[in-house]
């Protein structure tokens, strides 16, 4: 009986798969459930309530950290996406040449360099700059976030550019469009979903960052993740769960949007 190998028919496959899903999602599920706990324990269920959401909402520090997180993520994502768009165009709209692969690697390097190394490097660099300029605002965090978000924004944009039919740009130039007009009227509108996807990915990645932020931030510049980390060292209440749940919902919403935008449009060629 010549049957092709199928992982699905191997004994124990289903069990292992279920176990992995369990391991992945059980903690998250628990976290979400206990954010609705009416008691003040994160382990003993005492009934349903929204009190911890309310308490988080009334916590001035939580609100400040959230606003700061959103500000940093928004500005950093825009900067990162702009850089990534230019980089993606430069690397896809050119005849392949020696050194192009190296360029890809350089752009994607931050994905491979251990985050802690980047964090320390930025810490040292920024402390110098702080001494020189005297500036100690949010700018450092924004620049740092923008830097590590570039490769994430770059990926969907490059994918979109590579799947784009080159003859469209050729047709535009055939129809008297200058290279700027070709970009403005053809490439950019078609690239838009990719750019939005990159923007959202960068936003989520920035929102989520702990390590680099922890190193680079000055006093009173806690973002939501670093604030939570600080709180966890003291007393843990379901308020943390409530904040995490809100965080999770926002991230899921953005990732879902990202998924729909980055799907290749199937109707284009019909």
């Amino acid at each position, binding site marked *: 009986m010549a049957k092709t190998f199928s992982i699905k028919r191997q004994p124990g496959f289903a069990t292992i798969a279920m176990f992995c899903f369990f391991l992945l999602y059980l903690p998250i599920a628990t976290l979400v459930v206990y954010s609705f706990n009416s008691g003040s324990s994160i382990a003993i269920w005492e009934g349903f309530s929204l009190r911890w959401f309310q308490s988080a909402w009334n916590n001035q520090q939580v609100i400040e950290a959230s606003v700061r997180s959103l500000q940093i993520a928004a500005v950093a994502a825009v900067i990162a996406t702009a850089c990534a768009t230019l980089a993606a165009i430069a690397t896809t709209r050119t005849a392949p040449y020696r050194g192009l692969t190296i360029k890809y690697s350089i752009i994607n390097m931050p994905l491979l360099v251990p985050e802690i190394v980047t964090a320390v490097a930025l810490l040292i660099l920024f402390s110098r700059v702080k001494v020189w300029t005297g500036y100690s605002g949010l700018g450092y965090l924004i620049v740092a976030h923008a830097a590590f978000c570039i490769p994430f924004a770059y990926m969907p944009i490059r994918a979109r550019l590579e799947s784009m039919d080159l003859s*469209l740009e050729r047709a535009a130039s055939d129809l008297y469009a200058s290279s700027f007009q070709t970009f403005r009227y053809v490439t950019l509108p078609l690239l838009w979903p990719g750019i939005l996807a990159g923007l959202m990915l960068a936003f989520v990645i920035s929102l989520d960052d702990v390590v680099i932020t922890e190193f680079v931030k000055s006093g009173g510049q806690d973002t939501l993740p670093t604030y939570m980390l600080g709180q966890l060292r003291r007393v843990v209440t379901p308020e943390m769960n409530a904040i995490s749940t809100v965080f999770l919902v926002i991230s899921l919403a953005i990732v879902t949007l990202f998924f729909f935008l980055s799907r290749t449009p199937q109707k284009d060629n019909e």
Partner: protein
Amino acid sequence: MHGIKKWFGTFQAVDDVTLEIRSNEFFTLLGPSGCGKTTLLRMIAGFELPTEGQVLLDGTDISRLLPNQRPVNTVFQNYALFPHLTVAENIGFGLKMLGKPKSEIDSVVKDMLKLVHLEGRGNNPVTQLSGGQQQRVALARALAPRPKVLLLDEPLSALDLKLRKSMQMELKRLQLETGITFVFVTHDQEEALTMSDRIAVMSTGTVRQVGSPWDIYDRPAERFVADFIGETNFLEADVVSVSGDRARVRLSSGAEISATYPDGVTPKGKVTIVVRPEHARLGPPGSGVLEGVLDDIVYLGTDNHFHVKVDGGGTFIVRQQNAKSGPCGFSEQERVSIAINDDVAQILRD
């Protein structure tokens, strides 16, 4: 086009092509796949620069201009319509890029929609059109800026047979109505013969023969051209005498017929001649110039193909129309004679 050569690395795709395309004509580049037709067209459009040689338009050298600087538009093989724009926006794209006022664009777009029978479809997204309709939008888009030359790269190959036939007529009509020079690329000889004013037959980067469809079909200059276009019989013969534009040649059977020959050739000695199957007739033994045995009869509805094994070697195909219904009057393995009509044989350049 003058002395065009094009190398891709060490591979030579176009080898010393010199062509003169007249204004207002329907000119076709015909040749098998990979012979360099697209490359030649792309050099006229400006997507590719010739390694050597010049592209002249009305006497000015345009070979180094960017595509958007040339008054030449292309109908792409895959149409390359802008999927994010409507039909009207696609058609108006060229004029918009040229900075024409909106009122002018609107009126041209309206005329174009009418010209390609797509009235009322202006606001549709192009992605909702059928293949044939997309094709016509691509045509309208390329014609709207009234280019000096319209380039078409196998624009009909994606369509089914019936649609292809009607688009052939349509293209011819558009060319006549607009008076724009069309340069059309195809590997389909029938398409070339039906539509063109003149045809250039290409093979491996070179132009083998340029002429009217009649020239190409009835007066092929060389074996490649004769073979590529339609069905043909090749015969060995000896030149007996030459007078004016005719030569007398002796066939293997000893019979003599008259034949034409290509320009710039003085036929002498052993030559190859071509005779199209429909230019010969079958008759009883002794009535024609070649004798043989009827090997096979292929019934094709409108015609019969008679495969004759000629005495002394070789097969000769005769094609006769079934003017009357009923049996053709010949049977297989019967001895027959082939008569060749006057002035239909052509001597090939070797």
